[in-house]
């Protein structure tokens, strides 16, 4: 039985002939109502709708309730639930070993912004082809609700403890550091999240999605800025995100100008309708400024903040050969006797 109910009809098959049930995972052991479960559902929907073969997906993750979630979707994909805060390095190694795979990295706000911020920073710089999802609830769920580094200044724990350190804005960071597809969504916003995930899957570079995902057990109360209620009140979309996969025909367009039409690597198209005319999702400086301002205005911006489909990704920088390194035959990876002889001669 599917771990996570999805909005899909279980009989219907996608373009590669799989039903949504073939994207299911194990039964969730997360709390009922946990935002992470909703994200798992959207991932299943997105992979299903995009017709991605589960065997072609890897799911590296760190440690935390969020990092456990890969066990609850797509059991037919390989998962690696590693150590706390170090998912980026595991993912990097795996993608280098086999760049044909689609890497879906799942992390939490503690896993990424607290212990893991170092590896996060350097992953972003490399523009590694990966979809990096932060299931962001502002607390350490699995260790029972201490503040993480994305907790907003002034936010309160159930215990009454107040956070007086500024939150790390992982989106600003990602944009500044070199990620090429950066956005924020909310586990409760099915449509936006699903659309962003589908576009993200089509992107061949580092996608960083910060998904606000309320922790119903430890951080969904009054005084929390990561609660369902707070999101309902402060969610401020900056772009209206639409996506047309390569395999679908283009539907009626918007008026030119008001929409930024980005053609993704696989030919699919991301259509961003700006909700603020002076905003430009292709300009880092503008994006950074707007995000910085949103803090003062205590609004939580959502949508795709920044996208760049031109920058070379890490695989291209390394000029990797077409076939995955993991399966190169001996004839390719072990030079011949004459090479060793030549090397020896040079050392005589």
């Amino acid at each position, binding site marked *: 039985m599917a771990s996570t109910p999805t909005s899909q009809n279980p009989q219907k098959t996608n373009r590669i002939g799989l039903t949504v049930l*073939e994207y299911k995972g*194990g039964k969730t052991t997360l709390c009922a109502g946990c935002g992470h479960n909703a994200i798992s559902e959207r991932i299943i929907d997105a992979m299903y709708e995009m017709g991605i*073969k*589960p*065997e*072609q997906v*890897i799911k*590296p993750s760190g440690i935390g309730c969020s990092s456990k979630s*890969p*066990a609850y979707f797509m*059991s*037919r*994909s*390989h*998962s*690696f*639930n*590693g*150590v706390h805060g*170090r998912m*980026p*390095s*595991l*993912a*990097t*190694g*795996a*993608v*280098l*070993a*086999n760049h*044909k*795979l689609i890497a879906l990295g799942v992390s939490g706000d503690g896993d990424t912004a607290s212990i893991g911020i*170092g*590896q996060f*920073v*350097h992953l972003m710089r490399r523009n590694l082809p990966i979809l990096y999802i932060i299931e962001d609830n502002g607390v350490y769920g699995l260790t029972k609700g201490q503040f993480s580094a994305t907790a907003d200044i002034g936010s309160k724990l159930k215990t009454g403890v107040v956070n007086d350190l500024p939150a790390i804005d992982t989106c600003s960071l990602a944009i500044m550091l070199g990620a090429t597809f950066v956005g924020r969504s909310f586990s409760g916003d099915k449509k936006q999240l699903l659309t962003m995930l589908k576009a993200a899957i089509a992107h061949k570079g580092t996608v960083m999605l910060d998904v606000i995902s309320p922790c119903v057990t430890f951080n969904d109360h009054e005084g929390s800025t990561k609660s369902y209620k707070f999101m309902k009140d402060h969610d401020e979309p900056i772009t209206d995100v639409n996506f047309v996969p390569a395999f679908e025909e283009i539907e009626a367009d918007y008026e030119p100008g008001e929409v930024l039409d980005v053609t993704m690597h696989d030919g699919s198209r991301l259509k961003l309708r700006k909700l603020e005319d002076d905003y430009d999702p292709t300009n880092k400086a503008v994006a950074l400024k707007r995000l910085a301002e949103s803090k003062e205005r205590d609004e939580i911006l959502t949508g795709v903040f920044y996208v760049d489909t031109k920058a070379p990704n890490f695989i291209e920088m*390394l*000029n*990797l*050969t*077409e076939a*995955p*390194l*993991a*399966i*190169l035959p*001996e004839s*390719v*990876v*072990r*030079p011949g*006797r004459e*090479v*060793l002889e030549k*090397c*020896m001669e040079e*050392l*005589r």
Partner: protein
Amino acid sequence: MAIGETAVQDLAKESGQKRIVNDLSIQVATVNGSGSQSANTVLLRTIFQMGVPVSGKNLFPSNIAGLPTWYTIRANKNGYIARKKEIDFLIAMNPETAREDVLALAPGSAVLYDEPLNLNTLRQDLTFYPVLYDKLVASVTTDAKLRKLIKNMIYVGVAGQVLGLEVPEIEKAIGKQFAAKKKAAELNINAARVGYEYAASSLTKADPYYVQRMDANRGKIIIDGNSAAALGAMFGGVTVVTWYPITPSSSLCETLIDYLKEYRIGPDGKATFAVVQAEDELAAVGMVIGAGWAGARAMTATSGPGISLMAEFTGLAYYVEVPAVIWDIQRVGPSTGLPTRTSQGDILSNAYLSHGDTKHLLLIPASVSECFDFAIEAFELAERFQTPVFVMSDLDLGMNNWMSDPFEYPEKPISRGKVLSAEDVERLGGFSRYKDVDGDGIGYRTLPGTDHPQAAYFARGSGHNEKGQYSERPDDFERNMARIRKKFETAKQAVPKPVVEDAGNKVGILAYGTTHWAIVESRDQLREEYGVETDYLRVRAFPFTEEIEDFIRRHEVVFVVEQNRDAQMLNLLKIEFPAELSLKLRSIAHIHGLPIDARSVTDEIVGRLEVKPAPAGKAKAAGRAQEQR
């Protein structure tokens, strides 16, 4: 160069005393950043080309320029290439240390020095060869920038003349050193010649040391251990390399990059490898583990501090059972310690690295050829046993130049271990990742991307059952940990066996890694000077194989010689073998950063055995002497 050649004869004649041929150590005392490295390499190669066994060791400081550096070259007809404490021929180029350097010499040694330093006034019992560098340099170049470098090549010429090095070989060595840059080569050859002729015309040979052509090096190569490891890794089929710079391991990866760029670019002009300079060692090893999980032959190289940072991830790889190769080019710890000095101080910490119950495979090379072989073997073992493998090299082996027979091309085809294909999974109708199907403790794995609905398993560092599913059940945990331990038992049949020389003597010596070279020489000293015959076992891997247990059993006493403070190898032996064997073990453990020398070992052993020098050089009895505990 006819002049030169006759000159050397003359000089030779002049010297009265008994000649000491092909048995000397030269020390060049200089400062780092002064470019003396190429001059020293030329000296080394010249002797090498003359067919005389030789080794060079660079003793450098942990900074970039201006601090004292000593380069020692040892030429020895018997092939002894361990460090020798005594300096026979000092080339004093560093005013800051010259005094101390000269005072430390044994009587009879020779000193080549810059005349203005007046070192000759310091002692009467040495031979002094003054050199007027400034004057000589001026005759070679007027370019101020080149002066320092020229000065270095001049001492090569002077020493060459005094020691009897063959000029054509000097020129050949210079040619090789400056292969790319023709003008530089000429300039340097000229400088050497100036020094050579100066010596011929103005110096009088008064020391007994000579280098004379032999034929001990036919076909041999000269290479440092890190380069040898790099070559091995390339022929071992490495596909993912990650590193974070740290002395003394950096040159391993830097050399590997050069080799890969030259020999591992496919016909499509694309790389069949990925090299990443990681942000730190946690990331470096994390990438290796991620790559190993996904099917690459992945490795990283580091030293002590990096190893400590890899502790958590190493435990993950051990428990999730992911192949990973980690080179530890050991330097002196704890902490930053002496970053440019050698040690064998990480043996114990690596064997049990990470919290909880863990045990890791270690390979311990003693020579550059073993660096090459073990670089390949490490991948084979890591993939066969699905576990991290540490290769325990050290600074002395990794960064110094060593003579060696040419490396042998790997005959064994690459084996990726127990990996199931989509077809296998189909045939088996699924699989259990952590099940001991074959009774050797090793399970079967699939690689991500294997195109079968049942190919995937969930890799996790938390408790799991045979299928890799999350489990907190006591029985699942216990069974799984017992199976992992069984892999370690199985490995005893697979790791490189020790090298044993056993003639049935009572006294045994057990050593490993670069300590080997001091033992070879020390055993001869023990025999010739004290009549003490010893047997010898060189450990090359952990887990320990039965040969090691047998060796200890067969001997009355076994000296375990190593370069650390706490007798780490001896402690490992105590843990792994029955107590009655421990009774026989005696520790000889020191750490000060200099490669261990034979004399110290010999002195300590005879001290413990309470034997006296053998008059006629043979007192077999001593071998049976009661020894001190």
